[in-house]
């Protein structure tokens, strides 16, 4: 029977009589055991290199029944790889699997059930029932723990079969197994089933199960501990005593040598800590600090994970490492990804006591070579100044020192940072002349925009402001929009602050924009200014030079709900990216499709919102400026997506403008904007300030 199938297959494949495949084949069917084994090894080697050796399937399969465990493993490995391409032939292996699963040697039994679960061919599944049932109740814990995982494998292929045959119930029963490793694997398997199919209620931790898990925790392998800790973290209790008990039992794991166990323990404690009384709450947070610091000095890759997680924990508990800032000082040879994370954490830890040390450290970093890191360091100095008020003067001095180095990118970043500081703390205008010295070196849009903003805002304090603005205007049409917008606003400010001699400048800018520029935002803004200026210069001064809301915080914070979600996911990929898992992981088998569908829906939704947004924005503007568009009925109902205001004949628009309500309305718009839209806000601010 077997021979006839083989003949048929041979004829299908039309095997050549020479070449590597031919050689391997003759080895595989050799009469000498050692030659066969050697051929199997070479086949596996070819497989690893990515060569397609699937045509050897029947010949490799012949070697499956062997007492040599090593050879058996190799054949199984081959089988797992190519089962998909020869589903029919897999049947030939079933017999051996079933026999092996009853072998006297537990290693062989476990190997058989482990491999069977990896051969994802429907026909095999029918033969799996019996061996799986037996091995789940095997005497040897080694076999039981392998069978436990096998249930999860089977569930992935055929969920109904698992439920109908009672494997799920047996697996749940293994949570009470006497062997901790069996418990741990049962937890892993059940967690996975629960995740893919919540309706099965595969793993619902109850107080009963919790007790079993806590007992197994102290005895199983490091990996098992992580599985158990994670399931305990997911356990929701409302009982403060129970939460206390959990924390008490989990805390010793902070001393485990494996950093991932420590992180899992930290996560578990953090998930239950909110139920404890304030005293215990503090006690456990204190206990957490030394292991967190140890994680932050472990091997680079794990250290990276730890630092990302510490960053999250600090956002929720800002005081937890307040005395440990020095540990986050960057080493010269740290990889960049660590340095950047450390920098961010140091800023979060900055307080009036340590700010002195921090600043001298930041200054060191600002003199290093990697451009990206240096810029972040300079930025950090600014964040430091804004966070810790008492340090502002020192920060400004450090920034001035850095500007004096004349390293191009340092100066550019320093200018951007200075803009924020000036906005936060009035009274540092004295540095402006120093900033102006480097004005020609600035070639990045953001730095140029920042510099122009400064010149415009403090035009009355800068003697040659008009000259500076004039130089920028020379190349107006070549500038990116960001700079153009700032330049427009700055010119208008200059005119308002120093009306003498600057009128030609303003007119030139307004004319250039309205005649030559295509950008709608830019044109609109120019028109508004133009109308304002021609209608009532005094009112325009009040509007354009109005008081701005101060910059309060320049350190990024995650929104509360996201932060809470991520804290429950510590140590996972989500916590490393600071993004919820849905953003980068598909759901189950249909993940990619579902995700794509969701993305499409989202886009549709977004498009819709956008339309509404634009519409309301337009509405706002109309309210704000109280423009009477009676003369232009078309403009008052612009089509969605069109620019907020279409150009209106100047005279008509100005005539219809009523500026009475404007100044009182503008702050409402300013203050309600969330931080992350700062750049947008700035545009808006520029528009109305």
């Amino acid at each position, binding site marked *: 029977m077997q021979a006839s199938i083989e003949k048929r297959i041979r004829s299908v494949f039309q095997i050549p009589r020479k070449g590597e495949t031919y050689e391997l084949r003759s080895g595989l069917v050799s009469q000498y055991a050692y030659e066969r084994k050697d051929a199997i090894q070479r086949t596996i080697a070819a497989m690893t290199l990515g060569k397609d050796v699937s045509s050897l399937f029947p010949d490799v399969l012949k070697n499956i029944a062997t007492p040599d465990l090593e050879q058996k493993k190799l054949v199984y490995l081959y089988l797992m790889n190519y089962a998909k391409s020869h589903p029919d032939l897999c049947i030939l292996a079933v017999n051996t699997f079933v026999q092996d699963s009853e072998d006297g040697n*537990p290693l062989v039994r*476990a190997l058989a059930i482990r491999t069977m679960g990896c051969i994802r061919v429907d026909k095999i599944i029918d033969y799996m029932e019996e061996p799986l049932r037996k091995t789940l109740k095997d005497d040897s814990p080694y076999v039981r723990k392998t069978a436990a995982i096998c249930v999860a494998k089977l569930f992935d292929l055929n969920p109904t079969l698992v439920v109908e045959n009672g494997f799920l119930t047996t697996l749940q029963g293994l949570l009470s197994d006497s062997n901790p490793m069996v418990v741990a*694997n049962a937890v892993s398997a059940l967690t996975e089933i629960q995740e893919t199919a919540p309706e099965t209620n595969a793993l619902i931790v109850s107080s009963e199960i919790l007790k079993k898990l806590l007992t197994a925790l102290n005895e199983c392998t490091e*990996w098992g501990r992580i599985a158990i800790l994670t399931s305990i973290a997911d356990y929701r209790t409302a009982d403060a005593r129970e939460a206390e008990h959990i924390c008490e039992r989990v805390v010793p794991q902070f*001393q485990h040598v494996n950093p991932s166990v*420590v992180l899992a323990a930290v996560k578990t404690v953090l998930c239950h800590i909110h139920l404890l009384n304030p005293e215990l709450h503090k006690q456990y947070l204190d206990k957490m600090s*030394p292991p967190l610091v140890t994680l932050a000095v472990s091997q680079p890759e794990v250290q990276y994970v730890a630092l990302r997680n510490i960053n999250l924990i600090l956002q929720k508990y800002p005081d937890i490492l307040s005395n440990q800032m020095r540990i986050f000082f960057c080493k010269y040879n740290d990889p960049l990804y660590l340095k950047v994370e450390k920098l961010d954490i140091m800023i979060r830890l900055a307080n009036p006591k340590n700010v002195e040390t921090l600043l001298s450290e930041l200054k060191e970093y600002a003199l290093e070579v990697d451009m990206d890191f240096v810029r972040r360091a300079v930025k950090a100095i600014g964040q430091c100044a804004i966070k810790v008020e008492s340090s502002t003067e020192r920060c400004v001095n450090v920034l001035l020192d850095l500007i004096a180095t004349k390293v191009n990118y340092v100066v550019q970043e320093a200018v951007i940072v200075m803009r924020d500081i000036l906005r936060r703390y009035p009274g540092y205008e004295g540095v402006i002349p120093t900033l102006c010295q480097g004005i020609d070196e600035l070639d990045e849009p953001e730095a140029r925009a920042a510099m122009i903003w400064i010149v415009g805002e403090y035009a009355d304090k800068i003697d040659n402001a008009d000259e500076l603005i004039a130089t920028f205007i020379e190349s107006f049409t070549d500038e990116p929009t960001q700079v153009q917008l700032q330049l427009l606003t700055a010119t208008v400010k200059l005119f308002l602050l120093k009306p003498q001699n600057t009128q030609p400048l303003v007119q030139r800018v307004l004319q250039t924009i309205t005649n030559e520029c295509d950008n709608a935002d830019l044109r609109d803004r120019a028109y508004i200014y133009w109308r304002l200026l021609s209608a009532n210069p005094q009112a325009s001064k009040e509007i354009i030079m109005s008081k701005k809301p101060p910059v309060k915080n320049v350190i990024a914070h995650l929104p509360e709900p996201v932060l809470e979600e991520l804290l429950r996911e510590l140590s996972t*990929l989500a916590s490393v990216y600071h993004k919820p898992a849905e953003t980068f992981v598909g759901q189950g088998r249909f*993940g990619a499709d579902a995700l794509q569908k969701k993305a499409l829906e989202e886009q549709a939704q977004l498009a819709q919102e956008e339309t509404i947004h634009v519409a309301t924005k337009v509405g706002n503007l109309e309210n704000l400026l109280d423009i009477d568009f009676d003369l232009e009925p078309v403009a008052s109902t612009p089509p969605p997506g069109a620019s907020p205001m279409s150009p209106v004949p100047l005279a008509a628009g100005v005539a219809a403008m009523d500026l009475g309500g404007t100044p009182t309305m503008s702050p409402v718009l300013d203050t309600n904007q969330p931080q992350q839209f700062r750049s947008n806000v700035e545009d808006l601010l520029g528009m109305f300030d």
Partner: protein
Amino acid sequence: MISAVLLYNQKGEVLISRLYREGLRRSISDLFRIQVISNSDVRSPVLTLGTTTFCHVKHDNIYVVAISRQNADIALVFEFLYKIVTLGRSYFGKFDEEAVKNNFTLIYELLDEIMDFGYPQNTETDTLKMYIMTEGVRSETRMEESSKITMQATGALSWRRDNIKYRRNEVFVDVFEDVNLLMSAAGSVLRADVAGQIILRAYLSGTPECKFGLNDSLLIDPSEDFHSSKMSKAAAGSVSLEDCQFHQCVRLGKFDADRTISFIPPDGEFELMKYRTTENINLPFKVHVLVNEIGKSRVEYKIAVKATFGSKLFATGVLVKIPTPLNTASVSTHVSHGKAKYEPSDNAIHWRIARFPGDSEYVFSADAELLSSMTNTKTWSRPPVAMQFNLMMFTSSGLLVRYLKVFEKSNYTSVKWVRYVVRAGSYEIRF
């Protein structure tokens, strides 16, 4: 969980590819090669493309890569990758491309054993070595033997086999300390800490129960009420451990309750504990650095290194790395002891002193001539001076082993040896 583990060589050729889960295309290995190995600008050890995540660790000349398609526990993934490296080293001595190529069937066998369906299983080297053996020593395992092995691999004492017998019962305790220092240009200590490691080599018969004692200040501290009567203040000279981690054989609950370290050791060498201290660090070397940049063409160095430890001790393998600007043309050095050599590939002068006795001071001076080039207008970033050394019978933390008690049914006596070594971790001095 982990979907696949791959090993690559530096060229990006796949050496080992073990898939644990469905849903990966064969071309997935190319993706990593293109995105990471041939990409010079990789800025994170974790990379997600679409919904597939690659985590990699580089060891010697190979990349060890794990692929996951879920929201995996990344700390676990990296620890598992380190574990593969540790296992490889303990099996083959060296875990590099050659070792992988020569032992690829064994590696497949190991990968099959230490991970199932993406979940890590038993990864204890000693247990694994009982049933996964290198070619030379492989023998037909008998049936009853393998039952015993599997009992062990899953038992509560998964790290120790039964019936170990030694004629001479000995334990060697090695205390290794890596002292880390970051000193500012002004000479103040910005950061100093010690990362310690206690390695035990236990050659003990039977199932010995061990108790290990250190001069841990939390135990000795008179202010702690439960010990106040026994310990006098004379026992000061204790060390306060900021944090410690233990081998899995140590009963963590017991340590948490009363800070006793009790355990049944694995056979042979293992890392009993790691610890970290930040207070009262004894720095074995004080370094004074004076660097003058004279114009754009010359840099002048004057360095003095002073050993602060007792004159009976001496440090070995002392190496001071003094960075030089990238456009250095030539260097002339003068040293009081040892040898100094300019290493252009490292952009540094290496000053080596084979033997550095305690309580002495050695000096170094050098002149570096710089090439004047038009392109190099950047200022020199002045990386810190770094130091390496080994020092026996000294601890920077002040830690001392007070006792190691061994209890066994047969009540044999055992011999214990203790050795202390301090090494430089990252010992950096800015200037």
